[in-house]
């Protein structure tokens, strides 16, 4: 700190100006310099005390059902209106429309916090009443799309591994692809039907940053699948960096293990070790034909590619949930990313964030932690530049593009920000997310589109009855309405997430006077 209080820093330009005035003696100038310097030091002190302040995540609150819903508590740009289409949903994650424009939502059937229900596809009537079309048995259902007279759902695979399933309008479920590596922290996501008629989907990584650790026991899956680990899409050569941690798989509290990247818990790696790539893999976008088949790799090197959408030109965009400050290799200060996907490209995980190497600056080392360092001895390519960077820990998820002049902002991406999971994912000094943002892909500029009238977090934290945790967005068939899937209340704390069933909402945003 002393460098900021030194003489060089205590001679700002305004003081030089006043020093030329005849009544300003050296002594009076000194008296003015002292308080100004102190003020500057105080200013810096307030912005430099990150390690000393407690986390203030949006979920760090308490909640008592029922959830109140009041559209007037949501603020929008001038000329837009919002209404609640359906309430009382349990962990909704996606919305889709059939050939007739009928609205459907899916409920995940699982939430972080190890709460299990039943995944469901629901038809939503005009009055908000829901009818069950299909039920599943392999949660979580993370997303839905409609094409060729049927629904396509990404099953996360927390227990049985990820799958892509087809659901016909009568509710019959057909498995198109199974065995996806979705047993870990992140699941099978999407899907989005491309202009080429293929089913595109995302597969999240098993871990935060490629090393299995005690944080994965906190998630629950390390006890269920202790051999599970990352699977690269192409051969990778390791740097041989290993990490020591305690061992929650034994009763001995002093037991420790050493674990390497892309390896099972307790298995060290060697410098120069080659891990064979295979498909399906973790941290990737893949695709299959509409009637099923072997997965084909589209792009890799993502952490958790959650939202997928094609713009009007047919370009694929995805949102990536970026690193957390947890586990054996915590990574600090990495915002979620909006990517334009170039087929065949590696996007940087686990050694880069948004085209910047994790060794490049002081940005990625968490206070009090070791710097992340490289896990790979060589990198497949220099990762591309991102389209836009979103809030650190914002959990930027589902997205869609406006293509309708009546709605406005044609060509812009609308992104559902689920909101931070602090303190488990990492500390924040104020809530992040809990809103819908708008991104201009040509400039990378980010603007809020739908926020609570008290923008300081989810409705449950501010005493309002607006948005909780937006998880997906999709424009209706005519493009004049933006549907927002609100997962519902999930509080967080030192004991982890606490999701509340029956608090999900489907919202609809349109231009005033359009309905």
């Amino acid at each position, binding site marked *: 700190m002393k460098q900021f209080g030194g003489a060089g820093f205590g001679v700002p330009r305004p003081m030089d100006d006043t020093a030329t005035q005849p009544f300003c003696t050296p002594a009076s100038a000194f008296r003015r310099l002292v308080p100004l310097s102190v003020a500057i030091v105080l200013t810096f002190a307030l*912005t430099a005390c990150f390690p000393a302040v407690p986390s203030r995540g949006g979920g760090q609150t308490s909640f008592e059902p029922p959830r109140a819903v009041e559209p007037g508590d949501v603020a929008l740009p001038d000329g837009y209106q919002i209404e609640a289409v359906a309430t009382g949903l349990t962990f909704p994650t996606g919305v889709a429309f059939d050939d007739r424009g009928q609205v459907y939502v899916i409920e995940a059937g699982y939430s972080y916090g190890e709460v299990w229900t039943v995944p469901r596809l629901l038809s939503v009537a005009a009055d908000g009443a829901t009818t069950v079309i299909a039920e599943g048995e392999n949660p979580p259902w993370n997303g839905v799309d409609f094409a060729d007279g049927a629904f396509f759902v990404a099953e996360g695979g927390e227990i049985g591994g990820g799958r892509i399933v087809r659901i016909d309008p009568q509710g019959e479920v057909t498995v198109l692809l199974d065995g996806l590596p979705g047993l870990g922290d992140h699941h099978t996501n999407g899907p989005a039907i491309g202009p080429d008629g293929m089913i595109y989907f995302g597969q999240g990584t098993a871990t935060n940053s490629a090393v299995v650790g005690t944080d994965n026991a906190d998630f629950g899956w390390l006890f269920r699948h202790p051999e599970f680990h990352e699977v690269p899409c192409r051969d990778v050569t390791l740097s041989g960096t290993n990490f020591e941690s305690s061992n929650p798989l034994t009763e001995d509290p002093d037991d420790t293990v050493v674990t390497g990247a892309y390896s099972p818990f307790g298995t060290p790696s060697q410098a120069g070790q080659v891990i064979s790539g295979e498909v399906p893999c973790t941290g990737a976008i893949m695709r299959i034909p509409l009637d099923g088949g072997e997965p084909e790799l589209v792009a890799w090197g993502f952490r958790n590619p959650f939202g997928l959408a094609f713009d009007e030109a047919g370009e694929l965009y995805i949102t990536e949930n970026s690193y957390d400050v947890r586990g054996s290799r915590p990574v600090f200060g990495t915002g979620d990313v909006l990517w334009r996907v170039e087929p065949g490209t590696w996007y940087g995980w686990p050694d880069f964030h948004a085209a910047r190497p994790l060794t490049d600056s002081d940005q990625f080392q968490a*206070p009090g932690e070791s710097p992340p360092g490289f896990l790979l001895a060589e990198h497949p390519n220099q990762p591309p530049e991102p389209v836009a960077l979103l809030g*650190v820990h914002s959990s930027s998820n589902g997205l869609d593009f406006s293509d309708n002049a009546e709605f406005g902002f044609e060509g812009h991406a609308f992104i559902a920000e689920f909101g931070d999971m602090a303190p488990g994912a990492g500390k924040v000094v104020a809530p992040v997310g809990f809103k819908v943002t708008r991104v201009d892909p040509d400039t990378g500029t*980010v603007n809020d589109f739908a926020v609570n009238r008290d923008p300081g977090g989810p409705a449950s934290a501010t005493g309002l009855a607006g948005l909780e945790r937006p998880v997906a967005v999709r424009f209706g068939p005519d493009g004049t309405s933006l549907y927002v899937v609100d997962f519902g209340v999930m509080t967080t704390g030192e004991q982890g997430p606490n999701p509340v069933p029956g608090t999900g909402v489907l919202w609809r945003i349109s231009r005033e006077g359009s309905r």
Partner: protein
Amino acid sequence: MRRARTNFGWPLLALLLLVACGPAYRGEPLYGPLNVSDPQVAHGEQVFDAHCHQCHPGGDAGLGFGINDKPLPGWLIKFQVRHGLGAMPSFSQEQIDDEELDALVAYLFALRRHDSAD
């Protein structure tokens, strides 16, 4: 004694300004669109969103502290960008060149003033 009160008054006032000068939120839904007709401000918005938004969303607090409600002069903002502070990283000339840094400060000043609906 009198001079001592004067010397501590300014820092105290600065401290009060820093912690109690209103909310840092400036988003369009509550305050209307920011006027970016000045090309330098528009350029600064892109610089901000590429480098600053992720920790200070819209200039509000997030991972880092809010910056819309801090009365820092431009030269001090530039110093902090170049040198970092605490958990905030530094940004080199290669990451944000001097022209971009000028634009960034112009944008931050415009954002700071945008505290009521147009």
